[in-house]
């Protein structure tokens, strides 16, 4: 502050400055913020050129940028003021990345390949370290390297820190390469789990070097081995303990939703620091904290918190990664540390590559005896080539004590070169390599319900077979764990409400339905008819002319907003408006309500997943077929109103008048046995027999007691339709001219309350079903060859003056 700077009272005091330049005051945080800004701006610049980023991995670009910036700073100041200090790296930059990795780890894949991963991580790293260290020592003995004043232990220490595959680098490069998930998880898992080995080896050899080579005894070696187990298992346990704590805490955060995300980060970070404090493997701790807590935390916290956590984690991880690589570049521009020894550097590069390849080959050969899914040659090539070294090695080498390690500078220089080489060169070439080798890519399919179901069936079948054949197998273990989890853990760690809905299959189903709904909304919005449901806050640029389909307002549309939330969707349209924090169920009910008005509504049961309404059990099995029916047809057709023919509308009227409850619609199903002409086996037909008028599914709530009548009449109807086959099926989509008659016969005010009554705006143009609705519903073709469905809007635009004025909302 101004006053503070003034010398107090002494004669030649400075005059009062209105404004003064307080650089020193803000220097430190300012510089940090500036660097972060520079790194982020650099990312923007990189991604402007799609061609460049397609070829060059971002990490490489960032390193080059770092070199460049370091050069500038050096040229300006002749000091290397910014380096990647190990403390900053280990305390602030590395945890977010590892936490991100653990939290989003595909658990099943990870644990399914755990044996493989562990083998590579432990044995592989030890092998790499030993062979590299020993061979370098061997070469040193021959004198090619010149006189270096390094002993065997120094070489081994160097070997141990250069041997470890680096998670940051692997992530950065593999993210852009998209190899198949098994391959990725093996390399990535290895890079995470080898931390324990690295820590132990590093510490052991460092202390050995400190003691001096002569004083190392056998006991010390044994201690080293024991410490490996302690470090790794201890780190894991710390992580698991904190995961347990975190899950437990999130169970009770119902009323403090705003700070829910904070818990995730704080507790995970604490696990990291605790492990570090106890000299256990901190990376393992935070990894397992993320791995173990993900299921429960995701179940417990609200959708918004979940999104927040996800985005924040990704942001921090990405930011940390960016900074790491940039600083790697900057730190290289430091002539003080540069010690160039060609032989050493070259040989290191050669040795680590060769020994990695050899190690991978041998281990894979062993593993293939035990693995179900064999790892082929191509996989091995990718694994060897993908063993990148990165910032961890650099940080470790920077941590070395200069007094004890005379050759620290040499090691630092070599490490820098190695890291640059792997990240830049190998990063650059791995993509073409992968393509050239035709590595099996990851298949990003939409989750199919069938897959999930069959997957589940497999699990059970396989564990049954294992039980029957009397062996303890993979599935047996997994089964046991699932049971344990369901009976005990979930009860303790998950909220009651979450326990119900946490079945994976349900989630996929849920997602699929939501996706459909979103596509529908998107299509509708494109046409402009649903714009009115956007909240005013997001909608300030909307023009209110709904008579013409609008193409442009995609960004402002709710569906765009929704799509932005990748994955877990929060259809919180109402809440956007009212800004209230509602619990999930209320949100969903409200949203559901909104959707119901104008969109395809998911089936009746789906609503029950959200709402707490009473479910009136539907005793009659036959009624259930209509569910299937409904969903087999193209959903939106019903929106325009479909018709079956004149004679049925009367009955339909009557039925519609009935009160609605949560009844299933007695749709156009042909129940078993009612149609004499049909095959005795239960069929579900795809005939266009849509009974609803405005909205698909919900409106027809027939009493169960009317089932018989309903089914009779349906039978009649169907029979009729069969009879009508020659005359042509009345398909509303195709026979547009009859639309009017339906509406006449069926005044909406007589319909039950569930009928969707489009608003005024909506009436102008009822959205058509989206053309890309292929995935779940069969796509109906127009019978006119020149028709696109856009054109087919024509008949729909009849004035719906007979519809009530008010909306149902």
């Amino acid at each position, binding site marked *: 502050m101004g006053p503070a700077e003034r010398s107090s009272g002494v004669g030649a005091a400075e005059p009062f400055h209105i404004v003064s330049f307080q650089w020193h005051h803000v220097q430190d945080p300012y510089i940090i913020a500036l660097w972060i800004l520079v790194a982020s701006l650099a990312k923007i610049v990189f991604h402007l050129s799609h061609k460049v980023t397609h070829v060059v991995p971002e990490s490489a670009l960032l390193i080059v940028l770092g070199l460049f910036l370091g050069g500038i700073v050096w040229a300006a100041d002749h000091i290397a003021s910014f380096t990647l200090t190990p403390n900053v790296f280990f305390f602030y930059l590395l945890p977010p990345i590892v936490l991100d990795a653990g939290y989003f780890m595909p658990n099943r894949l990870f644990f399914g390949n755990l044996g493989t991963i562990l083998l590579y991580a432990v044995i592989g790293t030890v092998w790499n370290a030993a062979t590299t260290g020993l061979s370098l020592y061997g070469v040193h003995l021959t004198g090619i390297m010149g006189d270096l004043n390094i002993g065997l232990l120094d070489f081994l220490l160097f070997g141990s820190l250069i041997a470890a595959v680096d998670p940051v680098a692997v992530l950065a490069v593999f993210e852009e390469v998209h190899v198949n998930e098994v391959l990725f998880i093996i390399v990535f898992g290895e890079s995470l789990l080898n931390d324990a080995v690295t820590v132990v080896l590093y510490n052991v050899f460092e202390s050995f070097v400190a003691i001096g080579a002569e004083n190392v005894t056998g006991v010390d070696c044994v201690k080293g081995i024991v410490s490996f187990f302690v470090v790794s298992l201890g780190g894991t346990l710390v992580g698991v303990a904190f995961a347990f704590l975190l899950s437990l805490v999130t169970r009770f955060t119902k009323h403090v939703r705003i700070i829910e995300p904070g818990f995730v980060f704080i507790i995970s970070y604490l696990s990291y620091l605790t492990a570090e404090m106890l000299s256990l493997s901190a990376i393992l701790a935070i990894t397992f904290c993320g791995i173990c807590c993900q299921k429960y935390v995701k179940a417990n916290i609200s959708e918004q918190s979940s999104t927040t956590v996800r985005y924040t984690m990704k942001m921090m991880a990405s930011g940390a990664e960016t900074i790491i690589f940039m600083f790697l570049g900057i730190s290289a521009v430091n002539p003080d540390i540069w010690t160039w020894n060609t032989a050493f550097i070259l040989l290191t590069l050669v040795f680590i590559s060769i020994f990695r390849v050899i190690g991978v080959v041998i281990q894979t050969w062993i593993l293939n005896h035990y693995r*179900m899914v064999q790892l082929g040659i191509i996989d091995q090539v990718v694994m060897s080539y993908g063993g990148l070294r990165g910032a961890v090695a650099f940080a470790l080498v920077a941590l070395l004590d200069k007094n004890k390690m005379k050759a620290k500078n040499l090691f630092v220089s070599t490490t820098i070169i190695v890291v640059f080489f792997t990240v830049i060169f190998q990063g650059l070439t791995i993509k073409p390599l992968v393509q050239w080798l035709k590595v099996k890519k990851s298949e990003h399919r939409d989750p*199919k319900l069938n897959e999930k179901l069959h997957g589940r069936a497999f699990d059970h079948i396989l*564990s*049954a077979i*294992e039980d029957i*054949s009397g*062996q303890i197998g993979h599935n047996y273990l997994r089964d046991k764990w699932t*049971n344990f989890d369901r009976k005990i853990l979930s009860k303790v760690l998950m909220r009651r409400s979450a326990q119900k809905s946490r079945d994976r299959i349900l989630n996929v189903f849920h997602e699929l339905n939501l996706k459909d709904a979103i596509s529908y909304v998107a299509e509708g919005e494109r046409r402009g008819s649903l714009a009115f449901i956007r909240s005013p806050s997001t909608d300030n640029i909307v023009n209110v002319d709904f008579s013409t389909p609008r193409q442009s307002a995609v960004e402002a549309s709710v569906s765009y907003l929704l799509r932005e939330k990748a994955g877990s969707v929060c259809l919180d349209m109402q809440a956007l408006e009212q800004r209230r924090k509602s619990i999930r169920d209320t949100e969903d009910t409200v949203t559901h309500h909104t959707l119901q008005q104008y969109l395809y509504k998911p089936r009746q049961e789906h609503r029950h997943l959200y709402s707490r309404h009473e479910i009136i059990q539907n005793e009659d099995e036959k009624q259930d077929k209509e569910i299937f029916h409904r*969903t087999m047809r193209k959903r939106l057709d019903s929106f325009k109103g479909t018709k079956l023919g004149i004679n049925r509308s009367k009955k339909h009227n009557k039925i519609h008048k009935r009160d609605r409850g949560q009844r299933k619609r007695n749709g156009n199903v042909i129940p078993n046995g009612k149609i004499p002409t049909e095959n005795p086996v239960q069929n579900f037909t795809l005939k266009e027999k849509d009974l609803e008028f405005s909205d698909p599914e919900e409106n027809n709530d027939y009493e169960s007691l009317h089932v018989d009548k309903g089914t009779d009449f349906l039978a009649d109807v169907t029979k009729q339709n069969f009879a009508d086959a020659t005359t042509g099926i009345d398909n509303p989509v195709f026979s547009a001219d009859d639309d009017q008659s339906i509406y006449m016969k069926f005044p909406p005010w007589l319909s039950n309350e569930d009928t969707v009554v489009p608003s005024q705006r909506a009436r102008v143009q009822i959205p058509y079903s989206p053309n890309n609705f*292929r995935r779940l519903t069969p796509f109906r073709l127009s019978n006119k060859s020149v028709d696109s469905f856009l054109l087919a809007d024509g008949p729909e635009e009849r004035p719906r003056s007979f519809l009530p004025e008010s909306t149902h909302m």
Partner: protein
Amino acid sequence: MGSSHSMSEEIQELAEKTGFTSEQIEHLHRRFKQLSGDQPTIRKEHFDNIPDLEFNPIRSKIVHAFFDKRNLRQESDGLADEINFEDFLTIMSYFRPIEMNMDEERLDHFRKEKLKFLFHMYDSDHDGKITLQEYRNVVEELLSGNPHLEKESARSIADGAMMEAASICVGQMEPDQVYEGITFEDFLKMWQGIDIETKMHVRFLNMETIAQCH
């Protein structure tokens, strides 16, 4: 089961038929005897003795599958009352992992066999089609392990899955088309992209028998 000489012959035969190694066959034979109480055949009741199987939601279907004549490669249809060791092995052989040295044709055949097994499990009334009701049945059983899941949810999931299947198998359907059920060809189509060989197998390597099942 006779003298050791004829037993090794039998084992050889079985090994050829089912593809197991003789070691595995011996292990499985021991297990078979354990299950059957030293009798030559196994009945359904014997499966009740396996404690862990009780918690399996689709237990009945799996046990059923053991007795399903179609799986036993017999020409007839229906359920057998009891199965002998060879039948036992036949069923188990569906779960053998693929070998590295299999050629395309054998691989394809293998794949079809496994899928056929699965298909038979779903198609409980043996008519060659998985209808909606059967599918629902399966899904309900599958999800029955979760006590919180209501039946309607299971049903709607089954419906959704059926619809997916229909759209994959039949693609665009005419309005008057009837979709009766998933036939085996459709089933194969559904599984086209997914390599079932890697998913549907049990490791028959480490055969340490767990506790006696009584």
